[in-house]
């Protein structure tokens, strides 16, 4: 006979202000099976938990129902509490009377009634609960980092530093990511390459880090501690082990009209190329769309020129299968496409550029060798106008509803650098709001105004058009209540950023959730910001939300510490809420095996006594509890009801339905 205790939390006033906790306590005390019911201000507090422990001992409770916040919040807490008091951790049920009740209802009568129903439902369920013990699985002591930008690099270096193996999978031919494209970084104006490339080299030199460049994650199976990942190494048509990065092939290539992605397509590169001087790995790659040999079997010059015989036109995609204990997702971002913002004339005017393009135009390794020249005619721009919030904070459907977070700072940086290097240049910035929270950030922006004399105009630009060779920037000066037109030589659009589109595919493969803006969802917005909802998968960098370099690095290191914590364990406690089969019921029809996504079900021939001293051999299902993840697909497929799920048994759910429907 079960003896159930019910503990009703006030959650301060979060619950108690809307739910009459006294009435809930009285009602629950009368429920069959309930021997004790009490309410308390904060059940999750030290005192609250002590209250539960005492009650378990005093009333010889066999199970507890806590009516509080979402089980996603404190189920684990109360399981530990129960365990500490000698109960089985799974003899705990939570009635969610905060998120599903007090927070969404205003009427006390209505909320109290609903809270009572929810609590009764939990009691109905716990009466059928059974003590469960979690199984254990081993941990593969290796991590996978998806994305080789600054987030991925930092995470990999930190994990490797703790002594664990790390693989970086980067879809581009080199690691480095967006940060490698930046000229300077705010708020200190260090050269981006100078602080990034040593980290890239560290990755290449670490014996713990293995870089799969120009590779993509093909398939992910398994679960925390035991992921099986298939990696596609795309054909680069150059043998990585032989290429020395000498660059002779690049000089010899006759097809030189490829767009240089690293320079934001502002200049050209040959069909065989190394993305940039400090690329890691420093290995050439052939663009199959552009290579004459691959397209029409003509040429072959690079192969003839290559001194080490690294060119392999016949190379095909290959696959690597590896096991990992943890995965870090760091897939980064890209600037949005500007097709919906033609009022700024980006499509028609070469001298309207995005901020990332400006980074390349200012960079010593860029198309202009670091001298700021207009793309149209190669002249020095004398008047430069910046437009902020291009595509950010836009709910009209043309852009992104969020603030891209980094634009105010990099625009101030650009303005400052231009005024520093070319003091005769006039710089205007159209802004809606300036958002510079962060250490030394607002000071940085003010320097642009006070020290460098950048003209900040509060207002938005309505149209950019070409007139007499000038880019006419027509916009509002709201503080002056005027419409102004600034004839400019160069217009820079602080373009919104969005998650790299590859993240959708990765999210699907890892079964982690993505929000309406394609950012990955963290397990808890405040308390678990670097964990995904899927155990063993962590998030770093802009794939989780807009952030700048220092924030990205912090998050990457936080991810690394989570990964290290996970890999340091030899065994992981599994989820005991797994499927199990009643062999007496099982007919061996194979349908459960067909729906199991994990291959956790196999069949065995087993002898059964059938009475009269006789036996018969029947084929029955068998569940591997270490592999089963507890989705329950098999339980519904099974016509005979032989399959059931611990913790969510059919009988329990039916009782819950009955409790809810009891009027």
């Amino acid at each position, binding site marked *: 006979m079960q003896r159930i205790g019910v503990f009703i939390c006030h959650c301060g006033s979060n619950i108690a202000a809307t739910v009459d906790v006294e009435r809930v306590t009285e009602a629950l005390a009368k429920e069959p099976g309930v021997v004790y019911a009490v309410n308390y201000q904060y059940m999750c507090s030290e005192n609250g938990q002590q209250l539960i422990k005492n009650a378990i001992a005093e009333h010889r409770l066999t199970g507890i129902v806590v009516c509080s916040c979402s089980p996603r919040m404190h189920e684990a807490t109360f399981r530990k509490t129960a365990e500490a008091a000698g109960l089985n951790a799974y003899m705990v049920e939570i009635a969610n009377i905060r998120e599903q009740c007090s927070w969404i209802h205003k009427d006390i009568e209505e909320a109290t009634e609903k809270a009572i129903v929810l609590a009764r439902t939990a009691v109905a369920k716990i009466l059928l609960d059974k003590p469960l013990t979690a199984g254990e699985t081993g941990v593969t002591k290796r991590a996978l980092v998806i994305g080789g930008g600054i987030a991925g690099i930092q995470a990999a270096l930190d994990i490797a530093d703790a002594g664990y193996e790390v693989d970086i999978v980067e879809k581009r031919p080199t690691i480095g990511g967006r940060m490698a494209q930046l000229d300077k970084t705010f708020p200190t104006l260090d050269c981006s390459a100078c602080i990034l490339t040593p980290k890239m080299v560290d990755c290449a030199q670490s014996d713990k880090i293995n870089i799969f460049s120009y590779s993509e994650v093909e398939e992910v199976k398994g679960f925390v501690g035991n992921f099986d990942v298939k990696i596609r190494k795309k054909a680069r048509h150059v043998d990585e082990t032989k290429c020395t990065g000498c660059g002779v092939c690049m000089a010899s290539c006759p097809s030189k009209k490829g767009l240089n992605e690293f320079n934001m397509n502002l200049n050209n590169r040959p069909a065989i190329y190394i993305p940039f001087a400090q690329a890691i790995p420093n290995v050439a790659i052939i663009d199959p769309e552009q290579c004459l040999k691959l397209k029409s079997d003509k040429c072959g010059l690079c192969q003839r020129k290559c001194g080490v015989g690294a060119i392999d036109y016949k190379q095909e995609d290959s696959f690597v299968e590896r096991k990992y204990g943890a995965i870090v997702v760091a897939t980064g971002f890209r600037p949005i496409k500007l*097709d919906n*913002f*033609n*009022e700024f*004339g980006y*499509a*028609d005017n070469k001298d309207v550029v995005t901020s990332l393009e400006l980074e390349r135009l200012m960079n010593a390794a860029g198309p202009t060798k670091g001298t700021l020249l207009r793309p149209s005619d190669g002249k020095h721009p004398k008047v430069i106008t910046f437009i902020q919030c291009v595509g950010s904070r836009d709910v009209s*459907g043309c852009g992104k509803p969020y603030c891209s977070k980094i634009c105010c700072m990099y625009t101030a940086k650009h303005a400052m650098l231009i005024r520093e290097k070319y003091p005769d240049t006039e710089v205007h910035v159209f802004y809606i709001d300036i958002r510079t929270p962060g250490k030394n950030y607002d000071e940085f922006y003010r320097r642009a105004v006070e020290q460098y004399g950048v003209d900040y105009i509060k207002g938005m630009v309505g*149209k950019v*058009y*070409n*007139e*007499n060779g000038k880019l006419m920037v027509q916009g509002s000066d709201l503080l002056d209540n005027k419409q102004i037109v600034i004839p400019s030589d160069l217009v820079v659009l602080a373009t919104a950023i969005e998650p790299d589109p590859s993240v959708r595919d990765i999210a699907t493969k890892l079964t982690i959730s993505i929000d309406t803006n394609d950012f990955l969802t963290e397990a808890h917005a405040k308390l678990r910001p670097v964990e995904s909802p899927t155990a063993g998968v962590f998030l770093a960098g802009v794939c989780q939300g807009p952030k700048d370099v220092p924030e990205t690095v912090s998050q990457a290191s936080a991810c690394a510490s989570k990964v290290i914590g996970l890999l340091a364990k030899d065994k992981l406690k599994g989820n005991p809420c797994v499927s199990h089969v009643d062999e007496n019921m099982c007919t061996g029809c194979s349908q459960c095996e067909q729906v199991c996504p994990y291959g956790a079900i196999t069949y065995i021939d087993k002898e059964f006594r059938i009475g009269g001293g006789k036996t018969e051999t029947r084929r029955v299902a068998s569940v591997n509890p270490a592999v089963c993840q507890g989705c329950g697909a098999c339980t519904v497929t099974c016509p005979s009801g032989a399959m059931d799920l611990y913790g969510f048994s059919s009988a329990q759910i039916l009782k819950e339905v009955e409790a809810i429907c009891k009027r």
Partner: protein
Amino acid sequence: MKFSYYPGCTLKTQAKDLDRYARLSAAALGVDMEEIKEWQCCGAVYPLAKDEIGVKLSAVRALDYAKHEDGLLLTLCSACHNVIKRVNDDMRNDADINLRANNYLALDEKYNGETKVVHYLEMLRDYVGFDNIKKAVKNPIKKKIGAYYGCLLLRPGKVMAFDNPENPTIIEDFITAIGGTPVKYPFRNECCGAYVKLVNPDLTERKSKKVLENAKENGAEIVITACPLCYYNLKQTPCEDMEVVYFTELLAEALGVKD
């Protein structure tokens, strides 16, 4: 190919050319334009106020008529196009307007935006195809031509869904098809000054002048339009060596059916 055709008042009076050349060209391209019966004025401007239903009813009548024909309503005048397309959008997406309009009209069967509104230019692009026009051209118009879109064809972009509202290309593609050289100029989608002509003619003249000067600066010899009001305002604006014509006139000329 058959379309129910809504000409509109102005095409029966001051803009007869716009209409006549459209019909001649359509015939040459094998498009059947069947003028709908007993059409009424579209209301000339789309009423922005949510409580204005009466002005929208004639558009709904025309739409309902076309629904019972081939479901395609062809328009030519930019203003009619704008009004009818937007009213159609209301009938599809604004439950309140839909309800009230249907209550007023008491049609046999409710009208819920089933008809597709097609502008003559959209018809050329999506049903005839500019490639086919190119093949049908007998006298290529070898001139530098500036397309003048104005406001009504393009905005609001999401409702009109005519072309990219800030970087349209449909008329430029049309110009290329009839053998001309399109001149893209930034003011092609700016307002000509519209009806304000009657109360503040100075504003209208400034706006129209800016459009023509901008087209000229970019090298246009002719400016073409689909809107009788733009046509009037631009025509009234003194600008040397700049012709303003309806696009259908050039089309008829190119197809060799201009009488």
